């Protein structure tokens, strides 16, 4: 997936001189996750701008530059650092277009690396996606496959709205087919990533991988799970979810973030609101245990949702 994201950025920068990158270590270093390796030498320091370690300045400057018509792609080394720029994401990026009645246009993308599972401790391992999806005015995208990552990022860069693009750190190594040539994927469209008839698993990002593994194992037991990948949390496209649910009448929602006030809560509520007559079993949520993520590998894995947790939840609803 690293290559798919890198390609998307490269192609968009080649296509449109208004696109530029700013962030910590994006230039000379090549990106702490090596996504922008080679960019500095090719595009130069004007378009691949190393910043001080100052997240409010990074996001604030991206907003300001976007207002002048540029298309900044600001990189947050990890989504945990977004909290240092929360004011600019929430009070500025998400509100300026509305507050000034459409006069301000913010064609900007914030790329942020999220997720746990790498023993980075509680402050560097969070999956706070739902928090950001709470705010109208912001769009939140979180791909789970290389194909989606490339198409969605290209679309995000061409879009005229502020978009938080969350890349899961442990998905960079994920391999997958990426279509040839230039393509974009519309933002705000969920996708059925695996067809099935017995149960609907609703998930996104890293948990698509976990859910797919669970579905593989369930298939060996003759249980066919359908997996709907949300791909973006706001706008949230419930149509494929409801369509699938009306067929299976059972749902498990799998997210890496904490359960309380999370993506699962939102999706489950909407299913209950919009498809109550189709409910055959209480909807299950699989999520992170409600603790700050510990450093110790065993404890960390205990806290994160595992394949077995998904299988167990599926069997609950069957």
């Amino acid at each position, binding site marked *: 997936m690293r290559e798919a994201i890198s390609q998307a950025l490269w192609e968009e920068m080649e296509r449109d001189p208004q696109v530029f990158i700013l962030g910590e270590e994006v230039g000379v270093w090549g990106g702490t996750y090596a996504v922008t390796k080679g960019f500095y030498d090719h595009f130069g320091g004007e378009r691949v701008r190393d910043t001080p370690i100052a997240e409010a300045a990074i996001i604030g400057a991206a907003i300001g530059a976007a207002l002048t018509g540029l298309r900044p792609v600001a990189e947050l080394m990890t989504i945990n650092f977004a909290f240092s720029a929360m004011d600019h994401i929430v009070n500025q990026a998400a509100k300026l277009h509305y*507050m000034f009645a459409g006069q301000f246009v913010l064609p900007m993308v914030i790329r942020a690396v999220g997720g746990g599972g790498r023993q980075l401790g509680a402050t560097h391992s969070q999956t706070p996606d739902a928090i950001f999806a709470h705010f109208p005015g912001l769009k939140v995208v979180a791909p789970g496959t290389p194909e989606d990552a490339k198409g969605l990022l290209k679309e995000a860069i061409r879009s005229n709205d502020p978009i938080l693009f969350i890349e899961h750190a442990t998905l960079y190594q994920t391999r997958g087919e990426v279509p040839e040539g230039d393509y974009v994927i519309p933002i705000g469209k969920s996708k059925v990533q695996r067809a099935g008839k017995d149960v609907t698993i609703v998930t996104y990002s890293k948990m698509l991988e976990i859910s797919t593994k669970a579905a593989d194992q369930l298939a060996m037991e003759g249980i066919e799970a359908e997996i709907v990948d949300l791909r973006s949390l706001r706008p949230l496209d419930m149509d494929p979810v409801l369509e699938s649910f009306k067929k299976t009448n059972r749902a498990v929602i799998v997210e890496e973030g904490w359960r309380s006030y999370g993506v699962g809560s939102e999706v489950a509520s909407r299913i209950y609101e919009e498809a109550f007559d189709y409910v055959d079993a209480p909807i299950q949520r699989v999520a992170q245990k409600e603790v700050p993520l510990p450093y110790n590998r065993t404890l960390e894995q205990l806290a994160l949702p595992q394949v077995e947790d998904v299988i167990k939840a599926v069997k609950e609803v069957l």
Partner: protein
Amino acid sequence: MERERYLELYQQMVQIRLIEEQAAQLYQQGKIGGFLHLYIGQEAVSTGLIGARKPQDRVITAYRDHGVAINCGLSANEVMAELLGKATGCSKGKGGSMHMADVKKNFWGGHAIVGSHLPLAAGLALGDLYSKTDGVTICMFGEGATNIGYFHEAVNLSKVWNLPVLWVCENNKYGMGTAVERASAVTEIRQKAEGYGILNRRVDGMKVLEVNKASEEALEYIRSGKGPYFLEIITYRFRGHSMGDPERYRKADEVRSWQENDPIGIYRKHLIEAEIATAEDLHIIDKEMDALVLAAVQFAETSPEPPAEALFEDVYFEMESGVGE
């Protein structure tokens, strides 16, 4: 400067004063909601400053923004209508007192989180640097904003990237009710700019022509590609921080002594003494502005409320992909 320009500065200051006095009354009548921060006493700052800008120069400020809007060329009508939350306001009634803007006039708001717009100003300036235009971004803020991290991140970035930005600190001596010496490690705010290696200057904000001259010089410096510049403009607000200010933190004598130093009074005296205008000329302007502002109140009061459909407008630029309910 031509005589006409002198009178224009006077006219703008009087217009701002009258708008603010009307706004205070409308607030007391319950016709303006939310917070209302008046610019009375500080008119010479933005009038002198913005009077020095070229059309390509961007202006961004904090929440005490009505006067700045007028100086940027917004009409009294759209400012007053915004205060009343009407559809004819500059932000169609969605922004209110603290969020006025007109992008066509290069006025970029009106921002209500203290210090938060400084990184935006750095980005606006980056836009001009990137696009190789000769525009300068003028960023205004109070001395209270210089204690928050955003200030330091943005000012540092402006020097590191050599951004064409004019930082303008309006030092009115109080951040809400907290005196500058109780909140800031240095009371001469320009020392903070000094700390970032940015050329800086202190100016008497009660004298519009001094502000104007200092601003012209600063803008010329930045336009020549030398990077950011910092002005600390000493001023004083004659009214409370907002309409809900008990004013327990300063003595009536102090306020009175500053009011005797009224920027409009000082300028008026100067214009007459320097024989640029007669008392009669200025009296005519006063009357004209009085009529203009009363007409603006009338316009705002008779303007329509925003329609209910406006509620869901402009959440996103690309609405077809869904508001997100």
